[in-house]
């Protein structure tokens, strides 16, 4: 029983961390119809910044700084690599995103020398706590609550503020948004800022749990988060969050099956198989809109 609880707890926690990354994918897709391949690597860079900054500055300064710098990175990537291609075919922007992804990975290799770096122990988050007889870290308990709070805040922003209304308008129609006086480029920047900030928070939680960071450390969580976003119906925030929790829980359950069955090595394959099955029956994902291309 304790074992089941601990598997579920860590599944929910990993799912929550995927969710924070998945929101970034889904927001950007919703507004630009772009799969931002660099997003997972932004997450990785946030992790590395966490390592370097906490070694030089107190936690209370370094962690907010990590979020701030990640936001700046996301903003700069959009302005430098995507904005100049605003009127180009979508495929070109996607290639630009792949380029940025490799640029970030290679830069990380250059800076770290390619060696795995160890994420610092963050007081409180890394402390152990006893839940229903199982030992676990506080981060595992906190993640789902923090994710829910952030998602609630984000949905409030999108549905009850002026900038949120502009985001929804721009996601449907750039040109008419301009006719309302909306600065479309600023609204797009806002979505990158929100996505990057959430990825930075996600990196703090995720790497506290899995402390080894290599230049490739963003690839797999990024891919899983992307899958979660597609699974939930890309463009939909509740979809991305639910998808992320489902994927996180499934993968930890498979990893936690009795070792005699010898299936844990297939956890990623099973996760993707599940995705394929769901998409066969629900091609738009859980909350996706019927596919309409922007005209």
């Amino acid at each position, binding site marked *: 029983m304790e074992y089941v609880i601990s598997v579920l707890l860590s599944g929910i926690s990993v799912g929550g961390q995927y969710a924070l990354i998945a929101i970034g994918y889904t927001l950007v897709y919703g507004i630009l119809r772009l799969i931002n391949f660099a997003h997972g690597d932004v997450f990785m860079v946030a992790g590395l910044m966490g390592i370097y900054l906490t070694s030089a500055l107190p936690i209370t300064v370094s962690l907010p700084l990590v979020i701030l710098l990640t936001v700046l990175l996301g903003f700069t990537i959009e302005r430098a690599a995507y904005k100049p291609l605003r009127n180009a075919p979508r495929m070109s922007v996607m290639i630009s995103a792949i380029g940025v992804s490799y640029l970030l990975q290679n830069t990380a290799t250059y800076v770290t020398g390619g060696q795995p770096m160890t994420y610092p122990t963050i007081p409180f988050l890394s402390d152990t706590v006893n839940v229903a007889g199982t030992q676990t870290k506080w981060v595992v308990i906190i993640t789902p609550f923090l994710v829910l709070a952030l998602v609630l805040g984000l949905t409030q922003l999108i549905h009850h503020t002026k900038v949120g209304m502009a985001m929804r308008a721009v996601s449907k129609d750039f040109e008419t948004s301009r006719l309302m*006086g909306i600065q479309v480029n600023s609204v797009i920047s806002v979505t990158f800022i929100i996505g990057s900030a959430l990825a930075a928070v996600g990196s703090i939680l995720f790497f506290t749990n899995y402390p080894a960071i290599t230049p490739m450390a963003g690839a797999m969580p990024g891919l899983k988060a992307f899958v979660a976003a597609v699974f939930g119906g890309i463009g939909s925030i509740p979809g991305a969050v639910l998808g992320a929790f489902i994927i996180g829980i499934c993968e930890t359950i498979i990893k936690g099956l009795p070792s005699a069955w010898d299936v844990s090595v297939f956890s990623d394959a099973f996760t993707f198989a599940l995705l394929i099955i769901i998409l066969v029956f629900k091609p738009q994902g859980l909350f996706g809109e019927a596919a309409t291309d922007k005209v």
Partner: protein
Amino acid sequence: MGEEVLQISDLQVSYGGIEAVRGISLTVRAGEIVTLIGANGAGKSSTLRTVSGLVKPKGGKVVFEGEDITGKDSTYIVSKGLMMVPEGRRIFPNLTVLENLKIGAYLRKDELEKDIEMVYGYFPRLKERSWQEGGTLSGGEQQMLAVGRALMGRPKLLMMDEPSLGLAPIVVQGIFEIIRQIHEAGTTVLLIEQNANMALHVADRAYVIENGKISMEGTGRELLEDEKVRAAYLGSVE
């Protein structure tokens, strides 16, 4: 007649080598309804899209209330009081009716409530559907919403691109009635129409555009009675 609100001189617009507008000059004075009529592809929409800042012109000049706004971005142009009702209505289908109206006043904060009531006064149907998403409205209601949305920007000049397109005749009459009311309330209107008969009846002055150039101009009545206009744009309409 009032002073000149909009002055377009020798405007040229081209898309990838294709010249859509080839030297159009026209004037709209305060308090007028001016209409541009012409066939599909004559350059009417391109003219309006250039004035509103969506398209950069190749040459020529657009002056709004004495200020050169040629090639300025649309946020600036909207902030000056130039609103457009785009072709095909283009309401935001994922926003509620009320939000669609609010977004028309995106660049200002004051007195939104008063203007929303004003729009609901013109279009009681929209008030009933205030909380519905724009995409659930019928074509005619969407056109009302598009007009209402533009009014929310308190336009000094309201530009309308084919407001009657694809609507039932009875709905078109309603839309033109509203245009008349808006005009009486003091708004200057620049109207593009393929429905030349309706447009010329409501307009103070009109321009005929052919192949990117102005081929004729006059008062609405003059053009209604012109033989060539009757043959080309009014067909069998009496």
